[in-house]
């Protein structure tokens, strides 16, 4: 039944250029907000399932404030949010979170990788000549043995 109503909605939107423009504006906003506020990636298919998004397209009303909660109720998003929470708990070093992972070293590491814990984020190389020069000069005040590790940490080597 859900997909039926979605079909109707799609048919209505496709028949009217004005509605099509509204649909694109609304769905772009929802996708962008979901990425910014919740850190989840939606596609347009997901947005069709949101009642407040459909309402905002078909009426002149603004998007209701509830739409973020509706996004959170989506099945795919819920799974994603659960993973985010678990990852945050693991990074805080909570024992409960650790216990929820599978037993055994290899299985644990695989699970952590699935959560996106693949080591430190890559460091971007300094973007300007002046930045690079400053970092390099600071680097050269260190002892030779310390330099390379720092250089890697600062994205220089």
């Amino acid at each position: 039944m859900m997909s039926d109503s979605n079909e109707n909605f799609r048919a209505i939107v496709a028949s009217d250029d004005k509605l099509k423009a509204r649909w694109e504006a609304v769905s772009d906003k929802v996708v962008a907000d979901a990425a910014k506020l919740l850190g989840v990636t939606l596609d347009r298919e997901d947005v069709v399932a949101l009642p407040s998004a459909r309402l905002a397209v078909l009426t002149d009303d603004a998007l209701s404030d509830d739409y973020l909660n509706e996004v959170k109720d989506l099945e795919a998003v819920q799974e994603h949010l659960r993973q985010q929470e678990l990852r945050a708990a693991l990074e805080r070093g909570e024992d409960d979170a650790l216990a929820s992972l599978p037993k055994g070293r290899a299985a644990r590491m695989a699970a952590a990788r699935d959560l996106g814990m693949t080591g430190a984020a890559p460091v971007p190389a300094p973007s300007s000549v002046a930045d690079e020069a400053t970092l390099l000069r600071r680097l050269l005040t260190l002892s030779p043995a310390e330099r390379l590790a720092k250089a890697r940490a600062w994205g220089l080597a």
Partner: protein
Amino acid sequence: MLTVCQTDVANALGLSRNTVTTRTRRLEFTHAAQGARRYRLADVLPTIKARELDKVPPLFELAEDDGEELFVGDNAVPRARRLEGWLRGEQRERLFGAQVTFTGALAASVQSSVLFEHHESLRLKLALTDPVLRWTVLGDGDALPPFEHWAVPFAITNARYEDLHEKECA
């Protein structure tokens, strides 16, 4: 870096311990287990006479890696010059090629001129590293490092202000 002890030199070159002791007298060394003095191969090479040159590859085989990959050590400029002075025709050309490649790789990898302030001494110190030493002295092409990834770490580790014009003590 590759290091050798006096016994290695005596065995490879067929010299007496006394001769080796005399030749290595002025060289810097570190103490290995049992107090044996270990010298950097790049420092020992210039003590090898022309008639002994065919014994150089066996000496490379006896040399041991002390685990240091990039840092060429203190007082490097006079040591590098002594080594350069010992090289012969083809070896000099190989070293020159490595220096040109290094300069190109460094220029392609950094935007600022900070490391290039040290370029002249870095260019000299290049010969003191194992990969460039093997390539220069033995012509071992497999030893050459991937300069595009190697030039910056080498330069960062070894860049320092050096007196390029000091007179070497005789």
